């Protein structure tokens, strides 16, 4: 392609007059308020968090408002604590299960929405939006009542349906069962976001591509794998990353739901662990160190996943 490039070098050679500088700085001036705001509300607290994590900062220091610099001691003590490692492994498994369930079920419901008649679709969508708008604290309370040991409706219904004797079945009887209950609640709450987003993404899949594949005799599964999925991939990528970040640091649901019997070292997730260590024990420096470690772990998990997906994209 032949392009006359001569005006460009000419423009570059033009000396930088005050007017040019002023015009050139306009974008920076426009973006400055946002940068200042971000630095103020994210950068500064993050800086304080990092410095806090290098200090002995407990109740006495809080009262004197002066921490003692102890270098990496907080990190050393956290990393040599078996509770930290147990909690980390538990949280990673928990996050993997939650994210997988959320994405798979959310996508399936989005695909279902495509095939439904308009009234049913509107009904289902409204239901999803209602789920979405339910505050987590309220959802926990309702779910706790439903699964209550003494008077829960779930035990009653299961027994009445003849599925066995669920009278006084303890849904919070073991750490696995406790975390499974939390998983149900979190997946239930997270599905609407995934479904609505994927459904919007499905609108981008060209009808004719799908039809062409069908005419060529592709099975529905094949159509999804080779036509729909590649187009949805960027959306699923973002949804997965967001879900990892949310589920890894989740606090409200496990703290309140498991806390209704009791949170302890056998059922901590990272969010609860950092709260107990930092706030309940008034070890703010140690809590800050755990927070920083969590931040790094989430960053690593996300980067790993994003790179993998990008590489897969290159192959296909």
């Amino acid at each position, binding site marked *: 392609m032949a392009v006359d490039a001569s005006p460009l070098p000419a423009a570059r050679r033009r000396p930088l007059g005050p007017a040019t500088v002023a015009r050139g700085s306009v974008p920076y001036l426009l973006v400055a308020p946002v940068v200042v705001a971000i630095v103020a509300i994210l950068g500064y607290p993050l800086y304080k968090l990092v410095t806090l994590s290098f200090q002995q900062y407990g109740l006495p220091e809080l009262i004197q408002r002066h921490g003692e610099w102890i270098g990496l001691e907080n990190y050393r003590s956290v990393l040599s604590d078996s509770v930290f490692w147990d909690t980390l492994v538990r949280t990673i498994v928990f996050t993997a299960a939650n994210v997988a369930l959320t994405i798979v079920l959310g996508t399936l419901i989005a695909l279902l929405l495509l095939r439904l008649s308009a009234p049913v679709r509107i009904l289902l969508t409204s239901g999803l939006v209602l789920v979405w708008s339910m505050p987590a604290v309220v959802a926990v309370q309702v779910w706790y009542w439903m699964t209550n040991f*003494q008077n829960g409706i779930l035990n009653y219904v299961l027994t009445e349906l003849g599925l066995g004797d669920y009278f006084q079945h303890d849904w919070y009887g073991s750490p696995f069962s406790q975390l499974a209950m939390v998983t149900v609640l979190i997946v239930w709450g997270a599905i609407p976001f995934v479904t609505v987003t994927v459904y919007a993404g499905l609108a981008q899949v060209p009808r004719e591509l799908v039809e062409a594949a069908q005419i060529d005799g592709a099975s529905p599964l094949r159509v999804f794998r080779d036509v729909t999925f590649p187009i949805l991939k960027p959306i699923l990528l973002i949804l997965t990353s967001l879900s990892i970040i949310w589920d890894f640091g989740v606090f409200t649901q496990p703290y309140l739901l498991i806390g209704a019997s009791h*949170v302890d070292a056998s059922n901590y997730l990272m969010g609860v662990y950092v*709260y107990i260590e930092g706030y*309940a024990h*008034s070890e703010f420096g140690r809590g800050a160190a755990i*927070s920083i470690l969590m*931040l790094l772990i989430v960053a690593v998990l996300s980067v790993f996943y994003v790179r993998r997906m990008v590489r897969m994209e290159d192959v296909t």
Partner: protein
Amino acid sequence: MRARIIGAAVLVGAALAVVASTASGGTQAASSITVWLQTDAQATNWEPIVKAANAAFQKDHPGVAVNVQYQTWGNHLQKFDATLAGGSTPDVIEMGNTEMTKYMAAGAFQDLTSEKGSIPNSGTWLEGLAASGRYGGKLYGVPYYAGSRVVTYRTDLFKKAGIKVPTSLAQFTAAAKKLGTQNKQKGFSPVYIAGTDWYVAMGFVYDFGGKIATQVSGKWKGTLASPRAVAGLTAYKNFFNAASKASKTTDESHPNPYTVYAQGLVGSMLGPAWFSCCVGDEYKNATAQFVMPSHTKGSPMPGFLGGSDLAVPIGANKALAVDWIKAYTSNSSMTSLRGIGNIPNTTSLLGNSVNERAAKRSWFVPTAKNWVNVENGNILRNMLSQILTGRLTVKQAAQSASDNIASVLNG
């Protein structure tokens, strides 16, 4: 991300608190004091006692408003930490007696030693309670009230089964079995105990001569795996299995035992004496209390001596705070508190109620500055649910809890 949010929340909160304190801090004469009491004192029969104390205080300090703010046990310490960080502490704070040591050790309270003589009944304070307000030979907490644990029971059911008030653990167990065979409703508990109610379970441990932890030359040593403590825990497990249909993993506020009692599903329950408040209209007149019997016939089982102290945080107006405490712990105030079922802070007012008899043999948590971390890390509850669900043997669970407790107390 969560970390950032928490970090941001902390700092924004701290910043706001600092702003607030600089705005309100001044040299003008205090025109109000802030008092933090627990929501227990909000009960309809309790709040008038607070109001009367305020009125008495204001007689000496006309124009000084008393701003009473009611807190919940679950989060009042975190809120208190925030006010310590921001310098906007209340003038008087009610502290649970197990919570005192950590804060006294950290220097959160003002020394009240020189004021002690002027505080009513300070010569006859209940020793068990007064000890929780002393640290390093100084007085930081004024005893407020205590509460012991008793058995609240259905007189009609006991009568129907021909059971007399038991005087030993073996008798009580036999009575529980009898009640169980006579009351066939699903989920009926002859003796309702929430599985992880460690206040009850540790009573068994102390009854069998065990302890939670002891201090050996400056270092804490967990003692729950000792033969005596294990015997106590085993007795607890056996008693629970014979008598309680409550969840083995839940605590004593989910649900409250008296709620199950009010539903007619409980023959008797172990807990604070004030449980009689809330047994429901239907059973109000068929409810009485007795002292939990020991495994040694004729003796009471040691009960947890719960209670509260009143402390004056640093940065508070000490003179006014102490005057308010004097008004609230006066003889008339204590007489009223006793009238609603509490144990008063002074032996001079002690009577012979079931509650007060139960207080005669009591146990208390180790007075270590990190004890409260054992509580909010739920180490004992975890151990009890492991024991009752059979996930671990008594010995294994006790050993693991004992190690954890030692490491937290020495940490």
